[in-house]
């Protein structure tokens, strides 16, 4: 069933990046190293998107998650030097995170992997959908009344609210006392 071709080698490499990066995130005591491992892990995720014929999502993953969010995380960590070195790997809430992690894993396994693979792995290569979507399809889907225009609008409303909140918090309050 498992044949060794370029795609499976690539899958293996990306899996190592994702899992290795994720392990690095939770085991490194240095927060900057943790953030860099997170980038490695996200990069592997972008590789998976390429393997799944979704290059747009791969580019967005690199641009948004690595190019913006991960860099902002590093920036925030750099600004708080006292927090850079952690003395303990786990804190008092480790059992809560363990429950959430296991629950998420079970949910993904039952809801995503099982329907695709079948109970005994009989249909391993069956795609979820026959459509190969292009960027044009994605763009139309986001503004089409029958598809995702409502979620799209809700998401943009949420982002606008978040932006206004960020501006309000970051505003220099000493200036408006004078005005």
């Amino acid at each position: 069933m498992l044949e060794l071709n370029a795609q499976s080698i690539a899958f293996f490499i990306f899996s190592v990046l994702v899992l290795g990066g994720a392990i690095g995130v939770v085991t490194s005591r240095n927060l900057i190293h943790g953030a860099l491992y997170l980038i490695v892990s996200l990069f592997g995720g972008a590789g998976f998107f390429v393997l799944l014929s979704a290059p747009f999502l791969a580019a967005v993953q690199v641009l948004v998650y690595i190019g913006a969010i991960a860099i902002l995380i590093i920036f925030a960590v750099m600004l708080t030097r006292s927090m850079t070195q952690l003395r303990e790997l786990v804190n008092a809430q480790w059992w809560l995170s363990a429950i959430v992690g296991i629950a998420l894993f079970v949910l993904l396994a039952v809801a995503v992997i099982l329907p695709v693979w079948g109970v005994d792995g009989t249909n391993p290569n069956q795609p979820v959908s026959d459509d190969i979507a292009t960027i044009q399809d994605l763009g139309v889907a986001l503004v089409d009344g029958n598809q995702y225009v409502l979620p799209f609008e809700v998401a943009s409303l949420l982002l606008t609210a978040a932006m206004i909140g960020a501006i309000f918090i970051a505003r220099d309050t000493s200036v408006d006392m004078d005005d």
Partner: protein
Amino acid sequence: MQTCVNVVETMVPCLVQGGVDPGLAQFISILLGVVLVSAFPLVLVILLIWVERKIAARVQDRIGPNRVGPWGILQNVADAVKLIIKEDITPAGADRLVYNAAPIIAMLSVILIWAVVPFSPVHIGVDLDIGVLYFTAVSSIGTLAIMMAGWSSNNKYALLGAFRVVAQLLSYEVPFVLTLLVPVMLAGSMSTQDIVWGQVGMWYIVVAPISALIFYIANLGETGRAPFDLIEAESELVAGYNIEYSGMKFGLFMANEFMHAFTANLLFAVVFLGGWWGPGATEIPFLGFLYLMIKTTIVYIPSLILRATIPRLRVDQMISFNWKVLVPISILNVVVMALLIKIVQVAGIAPAPGETDFLAHLPMTVVLLLGNVGIGAGVVTVLRNAGRRDRMEAQDLVLEPNDEKSLSVTVAH
């Protein structure tokens, strides 16, 4: 299956005929292509540094390198040898892995861009569906490399440089991406090759000059060159993020900076100046390559002269220029252009896709150009009024130091 004619043009069939496994032959051919595409900028950079030094020298009334080789053209080969044989020093307290990885990642982020640069109608590393998004994403990794270098050096100046990187490069990415939307809308595709084909009748710099101008400025900011070279401002940060690097690792950062500047102008030529397009380019692909290089040089040389003549901005000036001038203009520009392109399409004066005739593009060009002139006039008016207001305020403060209002303003500041 193709037949083997010669090793250069039909390499895969020739290798297969010679008894190589077809998959392996494919792999070897792709590998050679990758090596070729990534080696070209590395060799080119030696020439680029020489050109830059010569031009900077002329601007400053000097001769520049003139000893090694004719016109000093081999000076950088000698410099490269010097950099390679220099001692490689890692500062005490540096984070070794991150410190050593940073120059490599910086180099990668630029070389990877070359994968989607169309050199001719047939020669392109890979014609990605999302070419424009790809090079935006890849160049954002460069930010990460500079931050890694600044943090791992264990040096306060390097760290300050790294802080500035986030402020500068992330900020200038916003107008960079927003203006790129205009050529993408005009071409109806994100593939770099399609964008060049879309400019066969008319270059986008004529259709959308404001986008081109903002893209050029944002490019200067993205590459971190004067007047935006705040991340390595010598007079403030000694050398910024690369202060602790020595030998070839420093050389990599330096080469990366020159290569990035050239690559940015290369992208400008691809997106706004018609890329490889020129008379006879479709018949003789090499001509296309030549046209692309000439166009890139035409926009590259002014950026060198700018670098040698314009003083460095202050950090706050640079950031506020980006967020208060470039970003609003580029948002307005995208909205107006999207509207005009739609109007042109509905009115039926848009050229058919793939139309190569210059006259067929004229109506749309005139409409979009007028839109651009409108935006430009509005922006200039607003900027002039804002500038006048600022000057008046400054004058008031100087002229009436005892005035109660101006005093309170001074205190508040």
